[in-house]
């Protein structure tokens, strides 16, 4: 008895479930949207998925940091990021394993890295959600510059710009406009009383409730407000006058170099890049925008149509990441 208890405790703490095949996945996409897909994968393949999700407040960046910290002893097999820049940063740190799924060619070439280190799927557009009741006396904004006008003082919100798709959006602004101009724009927005909220969901909710006139958010959060019958409307805000297309940020999946379950990891990536998964993500409450050309008819009907789904050079934005985040910290991170 004296030896049985420690052995049992050790088994429970260190090794339970080691018998069945498993795959460890770090997921930055919201649990509500990702979990059904992962459950389906387990049903189809019998491979148990051990998922680690992050929270809205440290979206995608926290998981990227964790993978970097674990680099000498990876435990993550697959990184399912809800954006692209932090995946590119991992690829540049040589932490990703190349893998070309069978269905890779069904996606446009710009949705994956040239060396197959990562692959994009279902995306979300960055939008300005406006409350139509608050727009009666104010012209609808058509550019970022409009948001820095006195009419919008203290009426516009945004999630913490250090994490998730908001950070990606800022880095893309830097890539598109140049660091100096982008920083000036951020300072103007800050001086005009830009409200910083804990997440994109909160930003959308504030607009839906009419407490803010407009907020920068993602299409899935904006759609939740539309489907809740709030008096809101989606507007695409171009990154610059020379690039009128909306910014669509794809999910990305990648295999981690030296991961403990590479075979299971490859199977999960193949599953995630299947047409079935993109359809589920597009038709689910997250209403992700399909990247496969064959699934364009599944484009969520509440989202205004767009011509150019993937046209932004994300590699260029990844170059700007460190500088942009440093500026964001100094501009917005004061308590």
């Amino acid at each position, binding site marked *: 008895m004296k030896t049985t208890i420690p052995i049992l405790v050790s088994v429970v*703490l*260190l090794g339970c479930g080691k018998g069945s095949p498993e795959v*460890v*996945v*770090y997921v930055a996409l*919201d*649990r*509500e949207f990702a979990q059904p897909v992962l459950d389906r994968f387990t049903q189809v393949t019998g491979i148990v*998925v*051990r*998922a*680690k*999700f992050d*929270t*809205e*407040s*440290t979206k995608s*960046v*926290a998981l*990227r*940091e964790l993978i*970097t*910290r*674990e680099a*000498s*002893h990876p*435990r*993550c097999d697959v990184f399912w990021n809800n954006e692209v820049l932090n995946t590119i940063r991992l690829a540049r740190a040589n932490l990703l394993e190349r893998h070309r799924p069978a269905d890779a060619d069904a996606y446009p070439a710009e949705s994956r890295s040239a060396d197959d280190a990562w692959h994009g799927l279902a995306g979300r557009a960055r939008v300005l959600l406006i409350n139509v009741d608050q727009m009666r006396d104010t012209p609808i904004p058509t550019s970022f510059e409009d948001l820095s006008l006195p009419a919008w003082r203290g009426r516009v*919100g945004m999630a913490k710009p*250090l*994490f998730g798709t908001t950070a990606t959006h800022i880095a893309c602004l830097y890539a598109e406009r140049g660091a100096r101009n982008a920083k000036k724009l951020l300072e103007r927005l800050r001086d005009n009383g830009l*409200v*910083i*909220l*804990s*997440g994109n*969901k*909160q930003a959308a*909710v*504030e607009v*839906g*409730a009419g*407490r803010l006139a407009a907020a920068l958010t993602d299409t899935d959060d904006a759609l*939740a407000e539309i489907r*809740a*019958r*709030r*008096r809101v409307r989606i507007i695409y805000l171009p990154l610059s006058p020379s690039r009128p297309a909306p910014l669509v940020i794809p999910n990305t999946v990648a295999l981690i170099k030296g991961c403990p379950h590479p075979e299971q990891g490859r199977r999960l990536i193949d599953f995630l890049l299947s047409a079935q998964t993109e359809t589920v993500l597009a038709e689910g409450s997250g209403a992700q925008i399909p990247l496969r050309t064959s699934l364009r008819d599944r484009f969520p009907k509440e989202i205004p149509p767009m011509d150019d789904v993937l046209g932004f050079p994300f590699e260029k934005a990844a170059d700007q990441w460190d500088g942009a*985040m440093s500026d964001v910290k100094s501009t917005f*991170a*004061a*308590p």
Partner: protein
Amino acid sequence: MGRRHERREIHVRRPMTSPPSQRDRSQYMGGRPWIDGDRLFSFAIAVVAILFVVLPALAPLTSALDQAGWQEMGDDVGRLASLTGSTALLVAMVEWIGLGPAALIGYVIARSLSRTRRFAKGVCLGMGSIPLVLISGGWLGAIGQDGWWPCDGVERGEPRAWLMVALIHATASLPWSALMIATLLEREPTGPLDAVRALGPRGIQRLALLWSELRAPLVPAALWLAYGVLTEMSVTDLFAVRSLAEEVYTQFESGGGAKGAILSCLPLAALFSLALLWIGCRSGRLMVTSEAFSNRSSRFQSTLVSWIGVVTMAAMTLPLTGLLWQLGLTVGAGGVTTWSARVARHYLVQEISQGRLIAETVWLALLCAAVATTAGFLISWRISQRPGLVPGLLIVAMAWNAAIPSPVLGVSVIDALNHPSAPLGLALLYDSVLPLLWARVARLTPLVCLLFAITFARMPRTSLESLQTLGLSARRQAWLLFVGPWRGTAILAFLLAALLAGGELPIAKLLAPPGLETWSMRLFHLLHTGTGNEQAAFGWAMLITWALMGAATSLVARWWTARAADRKPR
């Protein structure tokens, strides 16, 4: 003189119980093994103390006190100083809001009749067991966008949000603070005060009298309120209010600046731990003097004070009404919100059916509580046996442990184990729940020790001495104390540790391995994604499980007590 005499007595008795010295070892070599049970027991206690008190206390210092840490702090000194100031301001606001009601409720409880007092303490224990993250959810459910009492600007980091954060922390800490005040007031010598009261003082005199009674118990309550603010990050995160604890977590997760933030936390932690030590010394003296006044001459109840207590307790139920409101909320045509019992039942059943999540949270909480209770008991017992330099240092380390914010402890554990040259540490960190267990137990052990220390201070010295004179082994003595006079404290400590471990967020968020999700993590996530019905249902599922856990523990405690009573010689 008396003390010296007492020491000499113990010295004479020591050879009967203490392990053999170097000189006497030879006489044991023939009949007993060289490492006997007592020596092994002492060694085990030392290991427990090092693992759960000394190492976690040193970890933040070793992880942040280096050149990089000073550099980070120097680069960002203005912002970090401002954050330190805002955290201190938040603590002050929480004290300002929370201490008054806590003092009044504690006073009413302490001066009530025995049966009422027991009931009120039970209510406080129940209310205090609600995790902070759940209380935050309830408040958002009540005053957020779809709440029954919506307020503007509370989620935006505006002054109103600061007030909300302070209010939530004060509300969450209220039951424990009130309980502390009541428990300490019960032991205050009331005889002389009752005599003064009999003279019929009025107005300012009466207030002065009240203040003189409450002054000492208010200090630990104030510390408990500060502990809540310094250690948690969920409320500040939800309301976009920046504090040092959240800064450490956010900076670490974003890959930079955590060392500077950790260093900024340390002065506040040092102040906090000094205060804890001061209270420890003072309460020890208080306990000794209270023995002389065991018979209270009378109690008085003020109707006004009772009403204030009732109203304040009612205010605590606001988060629960928020959770209930959110549970059955539906948005109809034109955005009209209605409440439906059918919807509430549907979501509740759906969440309760997630047995895996419930089981994972509960078994981890129970495991943490069991280890923390055992560790806390062993350390307290050792300290009570041999006062001296080493136990003194251990007490200092425990006070420091209790003072450092939870995210700092979590980050320090990661730093301690994350070395590519130490594969065992990496394996433990990445593939097991041991780091999570370690950090949580390190967090809980000082609190458990505090409970045992109070019990020890209340126990007559003769009880300990009688155990020693029986010539029992150290292990046997400890066991008799554990199942005897310290049994009630052990049960209370276990329950408190299980509840705190189950509702704890920052350490779980930093150290949970893939595939493991605790309730606090899930609820924190739901609060961010804004799925109101699920979030409320989850909250209620948590509450129901918590209540069942509490009921099960009290049943076990009752059974244990009855069993012990049966064994007593009649």
